[in-house]
């Protein structure tokens, strides 16, 4: 038997559950009335007065049992103002929280993306897994490009960013969450992919380096490969070793595909910071026309490894010299290691300290596989 006391409780529960199911106090609009955003673009329009930001949304809508793309834009003083203005041309309800990518114009990035990131962070519904990319021309063109090119629904931009870590040593830490963790830290440098629309389509053409919440410079593909190799959390990539660079044709070469891992040692000499970057590059040989003996002879394999080490050290040293003299930013997150050892407040300007420090690079290459043979 159920006691009287319990009956009262059961009654209360039934009444509450019944109230919410029958009377349905919260409006649940049908999917046809919703607009589900996929990409957000941020541009800037400069006039004589203050800048205004056209913020565009590419969204999915559901009409006639089909999923379609739409593009709508609002121009405002900031993100929320633009959203308010966009609602004037909006015929559907906008659902926050499904964004897949944020495309930011280079000029906006150079003025600082902190206010935008702040308005994404404060919103409790934001999808923090969304990727962030910087683009050269109008960001809305990137969104429209995708709409015009594909009739079917695809997520081309998102996909090229998500698969970025397969080659070129790019890392896949490009989400909004990674932006939160690095943008405001004075010992870390934010690096985001940089896209452009070329004649043959949307393309990653390098990386953009951020300092103090503002984009500092773009680094082109060639150099960005080495930067990413030296940086933490680098992805996979190929290092090519050419026997004689000056020879135009028929040069012999070796390609190695693998994932580098770095270890940093940091010490002080006469109040000057010293770094030793040890790169462990473990990978497989994917082409080898230089020395096929490496299959059978250990000495030949060792020689290739040694030449590869020299090559990586050479490339790295060139880049580091350029970074210290020309870029004057700590692009490869060395300050983090030094700060972990000597404390964050021990140096006032980390970029300056890194550019004045001595940086040694030591590579260690290990060939794990050499394929099934040479032709």
């Amino acid at each position: 038997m159920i006691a009287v006391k319990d009956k009262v409780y059961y009654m209360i529960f039934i009444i509450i559950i019944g109230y919410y199911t029958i009377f349905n106090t919260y409006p649940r609009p049908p999917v046809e009335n919703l607009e589900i955003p996929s990409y957000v673009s941020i541009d800037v329009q400069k006039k004589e007065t203050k800048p205004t930001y056209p913020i565009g949304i590419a969204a999915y809508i559901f009409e006639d049992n089909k999923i379609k793309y739409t593009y709508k834009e609002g121009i405002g003083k900031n993100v929320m103002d633009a959203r308010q203005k966009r609602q004037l041309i909006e015929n559907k309800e906008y659902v926050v929280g499904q964004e897949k990518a944020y495309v930011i114009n280079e000029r906006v990035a150079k003025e600082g993306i902190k206010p935008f990131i702040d308005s994404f962070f404060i919103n409790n519904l934001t999808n923090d897994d969304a990727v962030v990319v910087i683009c050269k021309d109008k960001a809305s063109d990137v969104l429209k490009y995708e709409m015009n090119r594909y009739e079917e629904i695809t997520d081309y931009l998102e996909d090229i960013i998500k698969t970025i870590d397969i080659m070129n040593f790019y890392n896949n830490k490009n989400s909004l969450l990674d932006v939160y963790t690095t943008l405001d830290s004075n010992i870390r440098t934010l690096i985001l992919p940089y896209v452009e629309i070329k004649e043959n389509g949307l393309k990653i053409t390098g990386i953009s380096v951020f300092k103090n919440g503002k984009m500092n410079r773009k680094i082109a593909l060639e150099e960005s490969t080495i930067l990413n190799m030296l940086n933490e959390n680098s992805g996979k990539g190929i290092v090519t070793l050419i026997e004689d660079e000056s020879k135009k044709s028929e040069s012999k070469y070796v390609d190695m595909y693998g994932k580098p891992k770095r270890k940093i040692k940091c010490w002080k000499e006469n109040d000057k910071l010293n770094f030793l970057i040890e790169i462990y590059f473990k990978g497989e040989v994917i082409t080898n026309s230089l020395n096929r003996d490496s299959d059978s002879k250990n000495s030949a394999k060792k020689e290739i490894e040694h030449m590869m080490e020299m090559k990586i050290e050479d490339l790295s040293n060139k880049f580091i010299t350029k970074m210290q003299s020309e870029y004057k930013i700590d692009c490869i997150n060395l300050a983090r290691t030094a700060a972990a050892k000597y404390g964050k407040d021990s140096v006032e300007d980390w970029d300056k300290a890194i550019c004045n420090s001595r940086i040694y690079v030591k590579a260690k290459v290990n060939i794990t596989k050499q394929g099934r043979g040479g032709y």
Partner: protein
Amino acid sequence: MNKCDNIKITSSDMYYIIFGTIVGTGILSIPNSQVKDAYQDGWISVTFGALYPIIIVFLSAFLSKKFPNKNILVLSEMFLGKFIGNIVNFIFFTFFLIIAILIVSGFNNVMIIYTTTFIQSIEIIGIVGILGGYVVCKGLNVLTKINKLFFYANLIIIIFLIPAFKRGSYLNILPMFQAKFTDLIKASKGTLYSYAGAEIMLLIGPYVSDKNKIRAKGFMAVFTVTIMYSLAVISAVYYYGPDIVPKSNWSLVNVSESIRITVINNFRFVFASMWIVVALKIFSNYYYASTVIIEHIFKKAKREYICIILYVVILVFSIKFTDETYRSGFIDIIAPIYVPFVLIFIIVIVIFSIFKAGIKNEKK
């Protein structure tokens, strides 16, 4: 004592109850208060706060050994006289009631930010209050079962923090031991509210069957809580770094975003919803404690009626604390007042019990 509390619990049940009374949704914001002053050494300062519950456990274990069948309410009436004793007991009751109100409103504040943004505060608070009231009416037996079950649920939730260690970097928690000692003390002051709750031992002490294990189990519970708090601070700092942690009001929720599950768009919602069980557990414990004290003061009142009256009181006041800024400001004011009161109260009782115990015990 009420007839439905005429039962015995084991000392390990007491372990679950003490754990359940200390750990609540406050753990979600604990890294913020620590990182503010102690930076990457926040996980050290959070362990300092454990000193307070250790003292409470030590003193209450002493009392329950000396007076195995009397709880603190009986003792305070015995030593301080009926009138003063009742007044002190009533202040002790407000301690539990205020924390119960703060818990349910704090839980509501997390929920309306992270998961159920469309529900109004009164609906969340009302439903949690009814569930808590149901547990309290059922008595200590159900309370121990709930605490035992949700203890494991709580452990599972904490396990979800571990993936953060894969995605973060150890460089964030280095250099260790750099914060000044004064900063550590300053940071650990912020944990006073988070470590409150071991006082429930003073009320459930008489029901524990194996008295000789009380102290050991009490310390074990405090130790578990300390480890859990430390882990919370470390995982937040490890993942975000000390500069970024204070940016989020409930930084531990954001740590859970390191988990990527294919179908689930955002693990944050799942993680935040899991704290429902934890909030229910800690709220029931405080609700129970305040009900027991009121029951002692007004001996004729039935427990069900007390529950209903307290439910209304909790509902009315916790609506006022749905503003998080106001709530955290209130905690900063209230914690340094109540903690010394509770400590002095217990110490006075202990001193009286040392000097007066002989006479009073013979009388009984």
